[in-house]
């Protein structure tokens, strides 16, 4: 039986897929605060979309609740603005139903890691091919400034006037520990790298988690300045690039060397160590990914940016398709009369 859904699923796009970023802009005003990190994320997503070569009707953005979650309204593709924390659960059902769709999730640190934490970790382990962009601003903004699961200890917010007591989640470690196959981090002020990370997420056949440091000008302004501002970022952040040694610093004179499992900072300027002694990033090494992700809240270490891990693993929806193909392909399979009449049935004449 061919269903309408089957027909739409396999329908070819009429005309060329020749878009410009403008084609992805929905005809409504963006309502984030002036200076919000969201603008950059939206712009970079719209910029990379034409290059993906995916027809607009095959792209769906799903969001939860929060500032970030207004995102689908701004994209001229299919979109659902859903419930607080539930975007990944809804998207999982849609992706399993319709694996050919390109599915994107716009979420925030509260939406994704707090109320939606359960769906997040389980989508990571199932490896549903979703592209999750998490706007991390370290605060609940739409509810006007309470601390979030990525707020730092001591942070002053409306609901922590005397300082946050909780330890924060490190999103990259949580994603890696939950089995996410692609884990990356970028920040709003680096459009080039963000575009690269979003492209990587789009191309990755599996669950992709891109954490983006997004400045909230109203409730947590400057939270990530150390890692994102021109004056300080070279000394306090490091870009992970596959196959390249880990070098950072204003003068590119520092590197990361592994001392056992412990990453340490060494100088490559004083002659003791050279580039050859440094750790070389390998996206397919999950042990390394954990070590690098765990540098995140270590004040002595530069904050890692880029792709922590990218490992190919069969997706959940593909496994569903395989199982269906196997069992529906057996001789005599799929006959509804066998579902209705079984060995215990009887006939009254």
């Amino acid at each position, binding site marked *: 039986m061919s269903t309408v859904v089957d027909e739409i699923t396999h329908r070819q796009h009429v005309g060329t897929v020749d878009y410009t970023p403008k084609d992805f802009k929905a005809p*409504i005003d963006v309502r984030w605060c002036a200076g919000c990190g969201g603008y950059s994320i939206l712009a970079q997503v719209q910029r990379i979309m034409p290059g993906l070569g995916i027809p607009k009707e095959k792209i769906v953005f799903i969001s939860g609740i929060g500032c970030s979650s207004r995102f689908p309204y701004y994209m001229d593709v*299919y979109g659902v603005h859903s419930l607080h924390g539930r975007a990944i659960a809804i998207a999982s059902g849609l992706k399993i139903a319709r694996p050919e769709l390109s599915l994107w999730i716009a979420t925030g640190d509260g939406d994704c890691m707090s109320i939606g934490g359960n769906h997040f970790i389980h989508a990571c382990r199932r490896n549903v091919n979703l592209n999750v962009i998490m706007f991390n601003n370290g605060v609940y903004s739409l509810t006007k400034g309470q601390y979030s699961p990525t707020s730092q200890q001591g942070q002053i917010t409306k609901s922590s006037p005397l300082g946050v007591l909780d330890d924060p989640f490190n999103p990259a470690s949580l994603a890696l520990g939950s089995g996410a196959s692609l884990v990356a981090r970028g920040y709003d002020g680096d459009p080039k790298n963000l575009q690269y990370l979003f492209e990587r997420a789009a191309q990755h056949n599996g669950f992709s988690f891109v954490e983006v440091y997004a400045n909230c000008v109203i409730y947590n302004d400057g939270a990530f300045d150390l890692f994102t501002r021109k004056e300080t970022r070279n000394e306090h952040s490091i870009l992970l690039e596959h196959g390249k040694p880990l070098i950072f610093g204003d003068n590119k004179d520092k590197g990361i060397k592994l001392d056992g499992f412990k990453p340490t900072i060494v100088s490559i300027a004083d002659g003791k160590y050279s580039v050859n002694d440094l750790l070389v990033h390998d996206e397919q090494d999950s042990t390394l990914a954990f070590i690098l992700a765990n540098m995140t809240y270590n004040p002595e270490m530069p904050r890692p940016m880029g792709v922590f891990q990218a490992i190919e693993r069969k997706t959940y929806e593909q496994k569903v398709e395989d199982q269906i193909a196997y069992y529906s392909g057996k001789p005599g399979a799929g006959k509804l009369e066998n579902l209705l009449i079984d060995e215990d049935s*009887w006939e009254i004449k």
Partner: protein
Amino acid sequence: MEKQVQYLEEAVIRFAGDSGDGMQLVGTLFSNTSGSIGNDVNTFPDYPSEIRAPEGTLYGVSAYQIQFGQKRINTPGNKIDLLVAMNASSLKVNLPHVKKGALIIVNSAGFDEKNLRLAKYQKNPLEDNSLSDYQVVPLNISGLVKEELKDSQISPKYVDRTKNIFALGMTYWLYDRPLHHTEKWLEGKFGKKADILASNKRVLKAGWEFANTSEIFKTQFKIKHSDMKPGYYRNITGNHAVAIGLVIAAHKANMPLFLGSYPITPATEILHFISGYKEYKVKHLQAEDEIAGVCSAIGASYGGFFAATTTSGPGLSLKVEAIGLAVILELPLVIVDVQRGGPSTGLPTKPEQSDLFMAMYGRHGEAPLPIVAATSASDCFDMTIEAGRLAIKYMTPVILLTDGYLAQGTNPWKIPNLDELPDIHPTFVTNPEGFAPYKRDPQTLARLWAIPGTQGLEHRIGGLEKEDITGLVTQDPANHQKMVDIRAKKIENIVNDIPLAVVEGEQHGDLLILGWGGTYGAIKDAFDKLRSDGKKVSYCHLKHLNPFPKNLEQILKSFKRILIPELNMGHLRTIIRSTYLIDSIGLNKVQGLPLNAYEVEDKVNELLKVKE
């Protein structure tokens, strides 16, 4: 010896034993055989909620009750005519349900010192004359199967496990049933294990022969077959009927099926069945929690799938926010709630009808949705199709209420001819010309349905209030009022698309019994009994609870008094009162047990003594 033959209209038997004694199996086999010879059948499995309760204990008793007969059988019956008890605990637990004078076959090997101690019997009840009100037949069934299979190669442990089949063979003689249906089943089950198959067949036959030749059983009971309509039948549980119903409803809508679900008693079997339907291209997700169960179904529905989620009370509590989302997204979704005793964890394996309020009102904001309820195990199939029809046609979530009693019990299901079931027509649109996401079918008020993949129809929907037609986000006061009114009107309009309520008995008069959902069988039995006793009482049973059938108000106003029996503290009664300003009398039972016919009879008789 010469055996006597006694003809019966119907009988109630119960197999009871330890969890490992195979009582559910022989109960099922007995009911299938009874169905196959044209009796109507209704069953009730009664097993412990412990997974492997310690052997011989009172709380480890597992039982299976069957009522079968010539006429329509609406319930598994009340008092038992024949009890088969495999050990002391199963006798103790089940004795209160046995009719005075009834036959009790006990396996005397299950009454040794240890069994008696575990059953907390001070003295052996087989020896102390405490069972003198019954015809007790103590048989060493363990010894009988050992004797029968003494030359067999199978292990002594397995030999002892065939005692349930021996007992089944005896009951087949007692009620004059053929062996071949069970033999065929054994061949299917043990076809590849010749020893085991042969042993079971021998023991089945030996049980039959024993009852036939022994002087202990002097009477054989015969029950004529019913006038069942020609066709194929099978005994089916409510949960199985829901699972098959979902597949068939999706088929009738020409849509692929998706189930998002999380394990919960007593609804889990629906997930079990559906997860095995890969050959029918059914997709499912055993989600990480109840919320993801419903949310994944909403996602699949958004993608154009016939989507469902299955749960019980605590799960429904967790799903209500997402159900509200489906209401405002106006996406079709079937929510099956297999009701159990509450609040909280309550009585997980026991039936109740106490989720009606939650189905009706359990969402924040103005969020009406259709509610339907099944009346029997096999009716779960029909009402699943009905829930799907309403969901797809009106672009709305629909709640189907069944309960733990329907879910586990069985009755014969006349397997439908698929061509006779109604087609379901989704409102998919593919033409971009003049499309808007909240444009509606003027008849049904269902919004147009454009699914991802449809070129030129890209649009956004969401939980924020949307502008009529365009679907743009807006907080315009008049628009919100309008959208709330439209969503309500859409559900109210369904009244024109559901069957009228039917009154059995006089169409007006003094007393009407009004029931809903899973209590149908018990009330129907009571009603039939009362009518045959010449009592003036009428009966109406509801399967559509929101909206109510169009003629319900007129029916209610045609009676001076209305009795509403329900397994809750008065949900339907309250809704009837608030809807029609009509008061009624409640018969409210919340004991984790199904309604009994005699409870309704007693109440009606009590009411009829006091003329209004």
